[in-house]
């Protein structure tokens, strides 16, 4: 933190992105605020004392999503409630993850942009973005760049986001098959993930995508697990042993630690269970009548 602000922070609510970016360039101390569900908690505890705030909720382009053909471009300011309500068919994995975030109030305010910028290892939006191969669009007065979701995070609460930059959108390929998101928590709702797992099955490319949450310093892909041989030719040959092997590979890709939410051992175990279940579910969904594509 810089000099503590003892007066109310200066507040700017731009109406378009160019204004927002220019303001940010001029006022490096201005902290962007979208839903405020991470930032205001920090302010409340005085872990953050922003001298100025840049309110992003007036930027229409951040609060809309668009169909780009084979992908959906989601404005960084679209709240979870809308992802659940409007995108569950095309992006079932992300919608399932969004459904697990906080409470209805939090889902009405909280955004993917805020989730990414906070870069908590427990952010529930992250694993499905990794599993689906999403790309993150970042803008500043210097221009625009896109970063793959699995290259966005650099450490706990750290990302490639530079001062002066805003996340404008997240582009997620439309589901090409069943997707799953499982989140383990010690409470049945409104709980921070002890660990989580996202899986997407691409029936066209015959490919698996994975994302592990809350079991490492950053969200992780389980690349060895993604490479597992699936019985595409004879789907009935899929068995519990294969699912279990997939689970083992996912658990091996994690690097969890012991903390107040759970032990590293438990996280690895739970990931193996969740991954095996996820694979069984997507495989069954893809190969039973009336589902899949």
């Amino acid at each position, binding site marked *: 933190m810089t000099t503590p602000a*003892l007066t109310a922070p200066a507040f700017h609510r731009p109406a378009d992105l160019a204004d927002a970016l220019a303001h940010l360039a001029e006022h490096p101390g201005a902290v962007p605020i979208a839903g405020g569900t991470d930032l205001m908690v920090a302010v409340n505890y005085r872990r953050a004392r922003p001298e100025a705030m840049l309110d992003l909720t007036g930027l229409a382009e951040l609060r809309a999503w668009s169909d780009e053909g084979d992908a959906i471009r989601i404005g960084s300011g679209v709240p979870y409630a809308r992802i659940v309500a409007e995108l569950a068919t095309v992006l079932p994995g992300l919608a399932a993850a969004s459904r697990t975030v906080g409470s209805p109030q939090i889902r009405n305010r909280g955004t993917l942009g805020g989730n990414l910028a906070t870069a908590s290892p427990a952010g529930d939006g992250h694993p499905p973005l990794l599993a689906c191969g999403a790309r993150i669009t970042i803008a500043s007065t210097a221009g625009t760049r896109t970063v793959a979701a699995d290259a966005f995070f650099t450490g706990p609460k750290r990302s490639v986001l530079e001062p002066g930059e805003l996340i404008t959108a997240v582009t997620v390929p439309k589901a090409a098959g069943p997707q799953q*998101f*499982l*989140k383990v928590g010690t*409470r049945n709702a409104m709980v921070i993930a002890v660990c989580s797992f996202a899986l997407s099955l691409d029936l066209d490319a015959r490919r698996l995508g994975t994302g592990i949450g809350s079991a490492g310093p950053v969200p992780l892909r389980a690349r060895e697990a993604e490479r597992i041989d699936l019985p595409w030719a004879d789907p009935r040959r899929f068995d519990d042993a294969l699912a279990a092997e997939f689970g083992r590979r996912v658990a091996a890709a994690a690097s969890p630690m012991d903390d107040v939410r759970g032990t590293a051992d438990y996280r690895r175990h739970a990931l193996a*269970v969740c991954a095996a279940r996820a694979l069984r579910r997507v495989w069954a969904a893809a190969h039973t009548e009336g589902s899949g594509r």
Partner: protein
Amino acid sequence: MPEPTTPTPPRRAAGGVGTHPAAPAGPRPHAAGVGTSPARPEAEAKVNGAFDYASDLHFDGMLWGHTLRSPHPSAGIRAVDTAPALALPGVHAVLTAADVPGKLHYGLIDADQPVLAAGEVRYQGEPVAIIAADTLDTARLAAEAIRVDYEVREPQCDPQAAVDAGNHFRYQPVRLGEPVTAEAAVIIAREYTVGMQDQAPLGPESGAAVPTGDGGVRLHVATQWLHSDLEQLAPCLDLEPDRIHMVMAGIGGAFGAREDLSVQAHMAMLALATGRPVKMMYDRAESFLGHVHRHPARMRYEHGADEHGRLVYVKAHIVLDGGAYASTTDAVVGNAASLAVGPYEVEHVAIDAWGARTNNPPCGAMRGFGGVQTCFAYESQMDALAEALGLDPLEIRRRNAVAQGSRLINGQIIDAPSPAAPAVVGSDAVPQAGTAPSPAPPGAAGADARPFSPLADMIDRIREIPVPAIPAARDILDLPGGTGNTTHGEGVRRGVGYGVGLKNVCYSEGFDDYSTARIRLELEDGEPVATIHTAAAEVGQGHWNLQTQIVRTELGVDRVRLAPNDTKVGSAGSSSASRQSYMTGGAVKAAAEAARALWTDRDLADGPIEATRVFRHRATKPMDAITGQGDSHVQLALCVHRATVDVDVELGLVKVVDLTCVQDVGKAMNPNALEGQIHGGTAQGLGLAVMEELVTVRGEVKNASFTDYLIPTILDMPPMRLHIVENADPEAPYGLRGAGEPPTLSSTPAIVAAIRDATGLALTRVPVRPEHLTTGRPS
């Protein structure tokens, strides 16, 4: 204030007072009286957000107070430099132990807790300095600017080691019969652990102190016991008690957390030092450090039973961790010891209970108060005995159930309720007012030659209520893991378990427990209006409403007002120990009866009537220091729970799908509020069973937030089926029995028993964590 319409009160027939309302001849049913569920006077304001909680207090020109707390569980303080804080603009006062005007320590039972740490700190979060500033933020920055030179020490965090070293607040043994030589056919010996639960009231500690201009101070504070606060404060502030006026501020939950002082002395010192009103309000993290918790416990139990499952002996070694300061540990140990066996008959007993002194966070009052920890242990033992003997868990409890005339382990004989007329209302729901009593229950008389056993009766009742059927296809929200989508039925197993709890009501062990009520009756627009004045804390339990119900019943008046709770009336005692309906209810009833008697001889047109009454329950005796014997309890309350759980045995996630409860309440004073108390108490027990634990590592709290201190949500708490039994206690007002705590005892062991049933694991620790069911099973 709700003013339900009721028939016009009868007019006095003669006496020349015309049409002025006259005193009723005695208590009589009233549409919003005892036994009904009128809307609470404060309900609308609470629902629409208009209710003023302590955190909403505001006074013109007020400053904000803040507390600097020790980051270390144990350290010497070499020096405190407040100059950098005082130098900040907007800072009006920075006070340390050197500025305490009077006595340096306070406490509920022993005055051992420093107002501000002097020379050393004994737990993480101990207050070291206090600041008054223009804004809360400035006060916090000032706290960060204070330089404290700590000499960090190794904290003593192992309660057993502390006991071994003689560091305990109380040791209470109980001895009965010949426990050393007693022999049993079946012996179960296990060790149980209970984690540190927090009351987690949603309203943080908050209040405001306003200098009165004559050297005194008025405190607006959310507390459970205004007069005890006053008694502790006055010597610390070096003020005569009459210079301190304590006024209740809106309470956002308590559960024991508001029994000890928090902001009181600090804001009063700051107000007196600055001559300005000072408000204090903890944030969530500070709240977790700024109040006492439920004592964590380690308990070694040995139960011996004969081949029929009848208890022969119980031995227990119980260590409760009291943390750094005494708080109410003394009384908690007394409860743990005297209730250590539960509501069961046993001839030979050897209980040793300690309250250890450590550098862990101080522990004190929380709903269940010493009864919760041992209940988990003895109920687990009863289940283990049943399993060893191939007995049904309800049957073993029934065989050992205390009855009329039974002796508890403190030697006390159970003398209530009367077996003659067990009145029962309700079936699968909370009773409606006016429900006819059911016929005498099985076990009331006849078939059993034994005297009436309310517990055996309750056990028979819960057996009659069917375990819920499993719905076939269900939403993930109904499954373990809930919104997390972790199971669609994979790995899910069902289990059923039972728990029985015995809790003392009111203060025990010879404490002079009383409450005071004042009632004023006057005419307004020709109508009688009653105003009730007590100091009793409305902590959410519905006590204000209950007072108005009693007055309507006793005086037949429709219009009843509540004067603000403050110290201008006598003490009401604490809103704790399930005692307020009994005690302040008793005082209000007595004052109303006195007012009625006065009214009979007078015309209200001649002026108001006022009556003040003090109510005491029957005297109790201390526990003998060596044998634990003594009639230490006033009233005993029973609750029986059945839990049905679904467990994802692969992930160790639990969903409690049903909780059925049979509770004896003596009299359902307000069925709606009663239902709320049973739901709430049960939920708190559920929290302890599967999630609630304040985790400390080497004396440091690791989860002082609602992110990581989890309390049950609506998805974790199933709908309940309640069966209310009303076995009147002839000694208590209206025959009532304190109801707020018992469900907190029995729901925890019931849920854990159900998880054992589903998993086959022994489970000797609560809360049960997912790893205990999977990777980290205790061997």
